[in-house]
């Protein structure tokens, strides 16, 4: 299982992110949408409340206009005589009383001398301070307003009598002004009779608990309806101040906070949650499908790698035997070189080919095994003190025959060769892969240069830089990084017809990185390729025995 852990974990994290990020974004957007809709809903609810109060205000105004029309009829034919006036006003509606003042503000009816009925006498006593110099007298004494017809010269007064608001509807009739007195309670009862009840009657919204109040000028509640019971601290959601003659009276509308967004919140919240769950389900399903497909591919690839690895392992033992017996055979041939044929002995040549090809096959197998180890994250280096130059020379020697056959000149600059701690096999494999690439792809340059340098930028300040240069066709700039990907081959004539596994540079880079360095392809102004292998190679200490 460990061989698949890392890519599987990466894939799992990627799929989880692919699922959760859109869901989270959707949730955030949905939340903001709900907030926006709630704000809109509050505005809409407030508008509805305002409309409702507008309707109520209109209804109240209609009632007042009806009362005005009713009272106006009593002024159409106004008798002169006080007794006739008394008779004319005897049938006034509700608790309405009438006074008539002349243009000097003096009381014409009822008689100020108390000759009228008990009710008329009480009215005179009640309104005495408003007549003459009072507000009623001022209205009666006014000069006719220019441009206003007598029929239009009328209005309202609402002074307070004995602490209670009283309403006077007045009509100017020639030199006389008629005042109809209407008590606050009488007017309020007329309004209440036509306002809705609880639960709200026609025109109300019985499903939503709200409360509407009618308050008089002193702020006292005259009447209220609706199922909502606001507490003392609750502020009205909408208020309408009434106009004349009910100036100072107010209509107030209360509603619980939950009612302000009830129109949208429920459905929208459901929609967002449904969308969220649906999206999570779809993305989760897709991620699951991808997970299944990818893990199957990885399992198949792993099986292939494992197969090659096992085959390579199986090949390694017979190859070792071949090499060993080839060496034994070469030794016996040297002992039997009785005729002094030396290198011209065809058996010796044939044996050299066997040795060379078995070495090549060994390198190939080692690459395959290292690649398999790297896939399983088991690739390791085993460091010990030593010098790098012999390792470089050994790697070149391993290819000496083939380089010679390809007429590739080898230029070694190994002057910088301190004793360092490193894995000689790994360095040899890095160089072997680079030299092998020169043989395959840069043979036309007929040049191979290897140079050892100090690498001062190493993490511990102690490192070696190995530069491998050729004069081949080079690598296109856009492919410089991709050549390190396993199995990648540029599809051009550079690699056409060239055999190879495509894992050499990948293995070489991994080994360099295991040394705390890297393998890079540097730009080469002179053409060809310039590979730089940098290795953090600390100098050996006395008790050095560490293995990385």
């Amino acid at each position: 299982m460990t061989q698949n852990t890392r890519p599987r974990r990466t894939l799992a994290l990627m799929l989880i992110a692919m699922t959760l990020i859109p869901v989270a974004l959707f949730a955030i957007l949905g939340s903001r949408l709900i907030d926006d809709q709630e704000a809109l809903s509050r505005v809409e609810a407030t508008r509805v409340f305002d409309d409702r109060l507008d309707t109520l205000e209109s209804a109240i105004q209609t009632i007042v206009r009806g009362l005005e029309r009713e009272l106006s009829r009593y002024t159409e034919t106004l008798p002169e005589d006080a007794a006739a006036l008394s008779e004319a006003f005897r049938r006034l509606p509700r608790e309405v009383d009438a006074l008539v003042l002349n243009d000097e503000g003096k009381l014409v009816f009822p008689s100020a001398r108390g000759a009228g009925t008990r009710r008329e006498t009480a009215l005179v006593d009640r309104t005495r301070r408003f007549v003459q110099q009072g507000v009623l007298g001022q209205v009666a004494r006014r000069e006719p307003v220019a441009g206003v017809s007598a029929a239009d010269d009328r209005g309202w007064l609402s002074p307070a009598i004995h602490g209670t608001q009283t309403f006077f509807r007045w009509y100017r009739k020639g030199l006389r002004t008629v005042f109809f007195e209407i008590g606050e309670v009488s007017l309020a009862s007329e309004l209440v009779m036509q306002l809705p009840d609880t639960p709200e009657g026609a025109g109300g919204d019985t499903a939503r608990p709200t409360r509407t109040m009618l308050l008089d000028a002193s702020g006292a509640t005259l009447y209220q309806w609706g199922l909502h019971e606001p507490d003392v601290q609750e502020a009205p959601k909408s208020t309408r101040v009434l106009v004349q003659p009910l100036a100072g009276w107010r209509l107030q509308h209360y509603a619980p906070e939950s009612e302000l967004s009830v129109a949208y919140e429920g459905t929208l919240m459901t929609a967002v949650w449904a969308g969220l769950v649906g999206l999570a389900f779809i993305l989760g399903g897709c991620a699951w499908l991808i997970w299944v497909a990818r893990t199957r591919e990885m399992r198949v690839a792993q099986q292939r790698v494992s197969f090659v690895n096992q085959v390579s392992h199986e090949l390694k033992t017979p190859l070792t035997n071949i090499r060993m017996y080839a060496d034994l055979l070469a030794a016996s041939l040297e002992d039997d070189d009785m005729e002094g044929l030396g290198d011209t002995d065809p058996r010796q040549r044939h044996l050299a080919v066997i040795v060379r090809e078995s070495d090549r096959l060994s390198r190939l197998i080692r690459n395959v095994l290292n690649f398999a180890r790297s896939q399983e994250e088991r690739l390791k280096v085993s460091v010990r003190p030593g010098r790098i130059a012999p390792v470089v020379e050994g790697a070149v020697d391993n290819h000496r025959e083939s380089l010679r056959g390809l007429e590739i000149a080898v230029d070694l600059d190994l002057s910088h060769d301190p004793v360092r701690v490193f894995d000689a096999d790994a360095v040899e494999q890095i160089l072997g892969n680079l030299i092998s690439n020169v043989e395959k792809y840069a043979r036309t340059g007929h040049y191979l240069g290897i140079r050892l340098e100090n690498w001062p930028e190493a993490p511990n300040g102690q490192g070696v830089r190995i530069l491998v240069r050729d004069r081949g066709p080079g690598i296109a700039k856009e492919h410089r990084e991709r050549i390190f990907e396993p199995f990648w081959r540029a599809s051009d004539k550079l690699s056409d017809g060239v055999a190879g596994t495509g894992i050499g540079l990948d293995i070489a880079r991994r080994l360099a990185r295991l040394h705390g360095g890297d393998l890079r392809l540097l730009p080469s102004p002179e053409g060809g390729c310039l590979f730089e292998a940098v290795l953090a190679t600390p100098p050996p200490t006395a008790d050095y025995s560490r293995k990385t």
Partner: protein
Amino acid sequence: MNDRKNRAPASAASRLPGTRVRFGASGARVTAALLTLAWVGVPLGLHAEPPEPKDSKDSVELDLRLDRPIIRIDSDRQATAPRVTPLHRAYVRLRITARAATATTRHAPLNIAIAVDRTGHEDPEMDAAITEAVQQALESLAPHDVVALVAYSDTVEVLAAAGPPRQAAGIMLRLMAGKGNGALGPNARGANLFGGVAKAAAEVRRHTSHSRVSHVLVISAQPPGLGPQSPNALAQFGASVAREGVGVTVIQTGSPDEPAIRALTVGAGGTFLAVQDAGQVGPAVDETIARLRSVRARDIRVQMSFDGNTPPTRIVGSVGEIARTRVNASWRELRAARTLELIAQVDTDRCVPGSHPFAQAELRYFDVQTNREITVLAPLGVTCALGDTHESHFDFEVATSVSIALGEEAREAARRALGRGDRVEAERVLSVVLKELRDTASAMKHPEIMSVVDDLESELRTLDGLPPGAYRDAP
């Protein structure tokens, strides 16, 4: 009016001087009794035609009389400036009496709204009794009656709009299911009596007509806590409702007399019943319904027109208004076997010897039996005599009515004065009336008048010997 006023007219009326007119179903039948006071030889002019009633069961009886048939003229006053003394003061009594109902008497359709205070009581039995009483009242209504049911707390709910009572059971179910609404919540603000009565009146108003008895029956549980709640404001409101021809009865349950609620009924001229025992609720509601069913006449209006030389100077009691030479009074309804009474005081300075037309009464009312507006005129004459006249000429029944009315008025005025802390005014009012009644009593020696005098003297004695602002309870 108290019981003595509301009792049926005495059968002895026919032996007394005055005008007695009966109006039957035809509205044209008038019976006038012209009684000649033979022992004084003074004729009393009665001018109304007395047609025989077709159906005396449906009649409303009008009785118009003077407390004295002869007004004495002092010879020495002929040349002097007019002055008013008790000797020259007369009282005219107008009395309207409805006949008692019988089993066949038709009652006017009811147009009633029942407003129930649902703020509730501490005693659950009271709530149950109210529900049961209203249920029984609804079931007792006739199909042609109109009923509305309103429940109020700090809000008002019209449970059933004005309509036929056939859905009474359903209405009651809603009333019972509605318990817990409104004022029972934590933020409730008390009972809105004003709103409840206004809504009930609005329902009644939808079917108001001459042919129906319009009424609001309020079953109150708690004092008003919302809306206009001062006695003055509620009295004004009651008067406003009554002016539209709608009566008001309040049954106050649980708590004792509540001034503001009582003021509502006083303003409306209605009835106030305080019920503290659950067992009394049903009878109180039944009694109210029965009272409404016993209405025989509605929208009763009376106008007494006096001779220009003898204008009315005062109305005894609170009913009626004087407008120059006329006295106007109106009542919303008259129930079976009940009597309405109007007493006007006249000071007869300019009386000249001989017989004169003295006053004329015009009665208008809506007859519930016939569904018609009835108008009746009844004249009254007087004889002014020079010199001494025997005091026994007084009409004892009218004089008794006047004495009782004056006594009540004096007591009420004294009570109001004491309420203001004005004991001096209370003593003055009682003393003035007592002096007048003593004169009458000493002249007539009538036991009922003597009884009134005794009552007033007792009332006055409670004020004696106490510092200003203090008084004893009446015995």
